[in-house]
């Protein structure tokens, strides 16, 4: 990696690490199902940016874009299904607090 490439890598990497930490903290700290989904979304954004950065540094921008588009489609489907599950959980339990969801306890 050239000096300029290393510089770009670290500048964007700070943002990627920040997004990952934010997403992980959001998932760990909250008890609300919708907030957990938002944390998951932040983590996916970090991965998206990392793929684009890798494509830029290796000179494979086109391939990285194709992978990112596939990732975005999968991300949307995950969010739609997860949103449906959240609504379904709320209809059955009248709460989104994970501490009160004890029906599936083994």
């Amino acid at each position, binding site marked *: 990696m050239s000096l300029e490439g290393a510089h770009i890598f670290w500048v*964007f990497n700070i*943002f990627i690490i920040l*997004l990952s930490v934010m997403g992980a903290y959001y998932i760990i700290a909250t008890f*609300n199902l*919708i*907030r957990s*989904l*938002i944390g998951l*979304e*932040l983590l996916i*954004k970090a991965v*998206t*940016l990392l793929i*684009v*950065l890798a*494509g*830029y540094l290796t*000179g*494979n*921008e*086109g*391939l*990285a*874009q*194709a*992978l*990112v*588009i*596939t990732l*975005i*489609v*999968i*991300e*949307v*489907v*995950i*969010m*739609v*299904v997860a*949103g*449906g*599950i*959240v*609504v*379904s959980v*709320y209809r059955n339990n009248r709460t*989104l607090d994970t501490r009160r969801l004890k029906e599936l306890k083994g």
Partner: protein
Amino acid sequence: MTTRLVRSVVGLAMVSAVVSILIFRLNSPLAAVFELSVCAGLISVIFVTTISFTQRLTPEKLELRRKQRFDKYSYLPVVLLAVGILLMIFKPNPDFPLPPVPKEQDARNIIWHLRHVDLLGQILVILAGVFGVVILFKEPRK
């Protein structure tokens, strides 16, 4: 709780917009457009719909919010006007010097010729999502 959740969703949309600017700076305009339109737009709508399904306000609270709304955002037209005047005065001309993408690196070529099996996978994932939502929202038999 509802307001805080909606604020979180708006924050997520803003992060998505910033990420799409960064992706554009990394010479990937097609991915940036997808990120901005789908992630900042569609996913925010999905989240707001989920919140409105699960965190309904009582009629009293709704009425209270309706009354407070105009007082709360009364400064917004002034801010918009000031931003518009500043933009008219300074006329920003964003200059993004990006190197041209070679033809073999064009995302459209790669999607349609090199990674065409991905498209089949995408269609299958979308169908799986649609069936999942249909099953989740299915009314129970009486």
